[in-house]
């Protein structure tokens, strides 16, 4: 059967992949030299910009489509096959149903909690199974990754300017990673998810090791390789268990099965949540969930799978450290959110406490260890471990939020959005929810009207929205800090905190930029972006009823403040002696871009919240 591929939907990763190949070709045929190095950098930059343009075009299309209810998706299971794919137990429901697409913005998130069998069946039978979906969740992540990629390519141009690192290979590998990071949030099946995640991880080993004849870099590369491969193995094992029970790779279908809304092919007679919980497969599912969680915890450097981060960050070239701390981490979180919120939402009893404890541990350990660091990059490594904890924290209350939606029958998740609760007649359970594009879409079970949205939409609001908002703001401020660290690393050998003494006097722009980004990371005014990001996270945690987690996070904010402010104070103290500096235009552009975005987020954080709520 021939698949129809919507090339517009897959344009961003496609463009990046083509440009990656082009860079490799150009590098092979052009003579090596400074001009070619710059040219290759500009080519990569151009590829990223074009991909970003496609993402913007998609979001415009999506915003327009939001009104008539058409989403963007491709690699779908054709309609004929989709009907057969529905397990036998539901065949009757399928034939009896209208067959129209009634899946709404959150068919999974809502369907399993509505508890009304009819609406579940109705939603289920019409959810087209697509592997690649460009919804708001995807586009926010893709935009984040591509803008971060712009900054990192600019930083790379300075890093490579001195030679010593093969240019063509560098940009090729960098673009490959970005292809993976753009594909990952769009993935809606397990296979695609794993492949995309590996595409993010594998080139980074090579990137780390490209600084040849450097002991630290080689050590970092080996460490990253071993950790990453182990984590992949663990995750694959978990994925295989989940697949074994669920019998499908599609996240939305898995979500239905694990919440008991649909019978699990691997388990006899488990057609209700209770039956699933008491069946022998329950243990297998729990193990699968925990293993998948552990695999992702490696990727996002969450405690207790964090130990690799500082060594790798320090050993790798600074742009790669920035890549790891922003793009790689964003990709890890995208996968984690996709799995937890769509596929495993029915198993939240298992993962909610685990995520909460991991979040608390991650922020505490990261902050405490950051206190003792003397190297700038190591400090940023530990601080980014701690920040992972803050991003993870709202996910610990994501399940409660979803249940509250179900309980109130409205979509007023924590954000006090206006919600209307309608009571449908004759056994229908209508739910009103916010769909992408801020349109209110009514999904009436069995009624057969509403929006037709292929694939499983990820509900970007409430706790997930808070995580996403924090991630976006964190990316901007962290990249700003890394860009300045990159500048300083070109002039000082060891790049220790003491090398930053008096930076604001030697180079006011760099010094003030770094000070601003650090204050943002600490979450203090005038770094309002960081403050509001923390407020959003606090709000979701307090709303979700996890008071203890809020208190842990409050204490951690104070611990974190200490090292950020201590560093800021070093930057602003008078310099003992001026150090000659060289001009790195690309890195300056990177600093300017990252800091401009951070300042913009500080003045108008609503920009981020509009994207993520």
């Amino acid at each position, binding site marked *: 059967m021939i698949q129809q591929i919507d090339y517009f939907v897959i344009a961003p990763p496609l463009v990046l992949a083509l440009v990656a190949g082009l860079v490799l070709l150009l590098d092979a045929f052009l003579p090596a030299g400074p001009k070619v190095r710059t040219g290759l950098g500009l080519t990569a930059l151009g590829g990223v910009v074009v991909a970003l343009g496609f993402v913007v075009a998609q979001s415009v299309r999506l915003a327009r489509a939001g009104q008539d209810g058409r989403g963007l998706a491709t690699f779908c299971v054709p309609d004929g096959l989709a009907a057969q794919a529905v397990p036998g137990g539901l065949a009757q429901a399928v034939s009896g149903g209208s067959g129209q697409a009634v899946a709404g913005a959150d068919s999974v998130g809502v369907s399993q909690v509505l508890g009304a069998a009819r609406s579940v069946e109705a939603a289920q039978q019409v959810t087209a199974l697509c592997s690649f979906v460009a919804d708001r969740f995807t586009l926010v992540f893709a935009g984040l990754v591509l803008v971060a990629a712009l900054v990192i390519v600019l930083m790379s141009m300075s890093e490579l300017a001195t030679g010593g690192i093969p240019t063509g290979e560098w940009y090729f590998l960098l673009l490959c990673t970005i292809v993976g990071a753009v594909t990952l949030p769009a993935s809606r099946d397990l296979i695609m998810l794993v492949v995309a995640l590996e595409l993010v991880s594998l080139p980074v080993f090579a990137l780390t090791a490209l600084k040849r004849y450097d002991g630290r870099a080689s050590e970092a590369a080996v460490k990253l390789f071993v950790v990453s491969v182990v984590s992949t193995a663990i995750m694959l094992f978990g994925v295989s268990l989940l697949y074994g029970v669920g019998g499908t790779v599609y996240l939305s279908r898995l979500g239905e099965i694990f919440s008991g809304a649909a019978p699990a092919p691997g388990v006899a007679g488990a057609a209700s949540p209770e039956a699933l919980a008491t069946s022998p497969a329950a243990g297998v599912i729990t193990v699968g969930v925990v293993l998948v969680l552990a695999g992702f915890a490696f990727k996002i450097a969450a405690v207790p799978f964090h130990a690799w981060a500082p060594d790798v960050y320090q050993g790798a070239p600074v742009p790669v450290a920035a890549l790891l701390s922003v793009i790689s981490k964003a990709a890890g979180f995208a996968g984690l959110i996709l799995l937890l919120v769509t596929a495993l939402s029915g198993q939240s009893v298992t993962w909610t406490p685990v995520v909460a404890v991991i979040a608390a541990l991650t922020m505490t350990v990261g902050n405490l260890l950051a206190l003792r660091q003397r190297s700038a990059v190591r400090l940023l490594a530990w601080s980014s471990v701690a920040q992972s904890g803050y991003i993870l924290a709202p996910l610990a209350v994501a399940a409660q939020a979803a249940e509250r939606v179900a309980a109130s029958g409205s979509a007023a998740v924590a954000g*006090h959005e206006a919600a209307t609760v309608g009571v449908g007649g004759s056994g229908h359970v209508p739910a009103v929810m916010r769909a992408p594009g801020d349109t209110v879409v009514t999904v009436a079970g069995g009624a057969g009207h509403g929006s037709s949205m292929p694939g499983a939409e990820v509900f970007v609001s409430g706790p997930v929205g808070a995580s996403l908002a924090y991630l976006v703001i964190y990316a901007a401020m962290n990249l700003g800090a890394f860009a300045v660290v990159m500048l300083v690393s070109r002039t000082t050998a060891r790049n220790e905190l003491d090398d930053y003494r008096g930076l604001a006097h030697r180079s006011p722009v760099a010094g003030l930029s770094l000070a601003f980004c650090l204050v943002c990371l600490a979450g203090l005014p*005038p770094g309002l972006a960081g403050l509001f990001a923390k407020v959003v996270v606090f*709000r979701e945690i307090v709303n979700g009823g996890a008071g203890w987690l809020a*208190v842990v996070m*409050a204490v951690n904010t*104070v611990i974190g403040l200490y090292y950020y*402010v201590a560093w800021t104070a070093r930057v*602003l103290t008078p310099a003992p002696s001026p150090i000659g500096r060289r001009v790195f235009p690309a890195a300056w552009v990177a600093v300017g871009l990252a800091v401009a975005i951070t300042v913009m987020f500080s003045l108008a954080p609503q920009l981020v919240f509009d994207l993520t709520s």
Partner: protein
Amino acid sequence: MMGWLPVTLLAVPLLGALLLLVAPAALRPALPLYGQAVSGLALALTVVMVAVFDYGRAAAPQFTVDLPWIPGLDLRFHLGVDGISLPLVVLTALLTFLCFAHLGWGRGRGPGRLMGSRPRALVFTLLVLEVGMVGTFLALDLLLFFVFFEIVLIPMYFLIAVWGGKGRRGAATKFILYTLLGSVVMLVGLLFIWSQTGTLDIVALARAHGAGMSRGVQIVAFAAVGLGLAVKTPMWPLHTWLPDAHTEAPTAGSVLLAGVLLKMGTYGFARIAIPILPEGAVAAAPWLGALAVVGIVYGALACLAQRDLKRMIAYSSVGHMGFVLLGFATLTTVGVNGALFANVAHGLITGLLFFLAGSIKDRYGTADMPSLGGGMLATLPHLGAVLTFASIASLGLPGLAGFWGEMLALLGAFQPADGLPRGLFLTYMVIGGLGAVLTAAYFLVMLSRVTHGRPSRPSSGLVGAGATVGALGGRVEGVESTVDPGGASAGGSGGLTDSGGYADSGGHVERSGREAAGFGGDEPDTGSGPPRDIQPYEMVAWVPLIVLILLFGLWPGLLMSLTTPAVQTLLGALS
């Protein structure tokens, strides 16, 4: 109506600070004047505010402006002034202006040295500080209040860490970590209120008087919010950051810290904790009162044990804030009125005391009371007289501003609000009264040590010997009292002849003492001759404070008429 006034009041110092970043070179020669001009403009705006304020409606917020800022967070740019915040806004603008006047006019002399080291950064820091302080008193949105509450942290940190004394690094770190811990806990409390009521509007929440929140919710929220405010206030036992910060901060930092920053904590009680969470306040009031009286007595006892003048004034703040908290704890119109009055009075009096302590430190090179040696009324009659005036105002002499607040707070404790245990509050009143006596005691002891007695060291040449006294303790004190003024003016010779064995160490201490003082940027006046009495620039800074202390002391109704209607409104549910 007149909504532009609070916005302009915030915009003036903010734009003033930004202009310093944009055009540093053009402004460099006129920096002292520039700071005075910007803060003077802000002060003029507050005077306009006082002039057009509708005193008939002092309970309602006026000059309100309410714009959406971040809809995603429900955060609105909601500003306004009522009878509670108006005096504090004016106090803030006044003290900031006086600090600039003190810094600017004293160029070349003692505190002017501060302007010598990185003047642009200093002006910038003080202006940003003013934005945060004024904004806190203007904000009518919980999150906006929090944002302004936090804005002051970074400038104050740098004020202490860059321009402070010897132990500035540690003091600044302690200050920021301590207060930030409080703030974050407060943030959790504020968000808890929000999650329960769904609004951040302080006006609406205060009007609701806790409706929509169960008693348990209110108690938890009050505990969290109160803890954050108590750190800032500071309430015993959360006060330990204060003495260090005050001792190490430069004069302007100490004045603003005592005069305004502490008020932000107490203002939070009057603006947020008590009106929004009345049931929580009733439940917490006995505890608050207990900690308040402990603070009063502890502050007084700690003051008796201090040798350093600045440290003593810092501990006296703990005691005075105890009275303010006791007034709040009574939850009566009288008590809360007294608390708000004591708040403003403390800002004026302690601001003046820190100015004086700074001047004394500039002249003598130390604020160590035994080293100062006494007899100031004879050597520096004007300075001594103003110090005496400020001290007796602070100890609560009737007829001066310090009296009314403490008296009303104790009166409130005599008859606390319904639902509070009267016997317990009577006990608090008695202990608080004892604390007032102790307050008088330590101020009088301080005056007898510093202003009275025979002047023993009129010359600044004795700076080093003073340090020796500090190092050698009481043994040399006796030596010093035997030296007549004429002999002592010949430098360290008095010490040399009487205790020859210590001459080397004395010289050593002198040198290191000077180095340390120079490091902090406030080197003692090394010019020949005796220290000068009050200078014109000091007069400019102090006279407005002296006048206001007298005015409010003789005519307390001026302030009371402003706060009473607002207090009655905020206690609406209780009284």
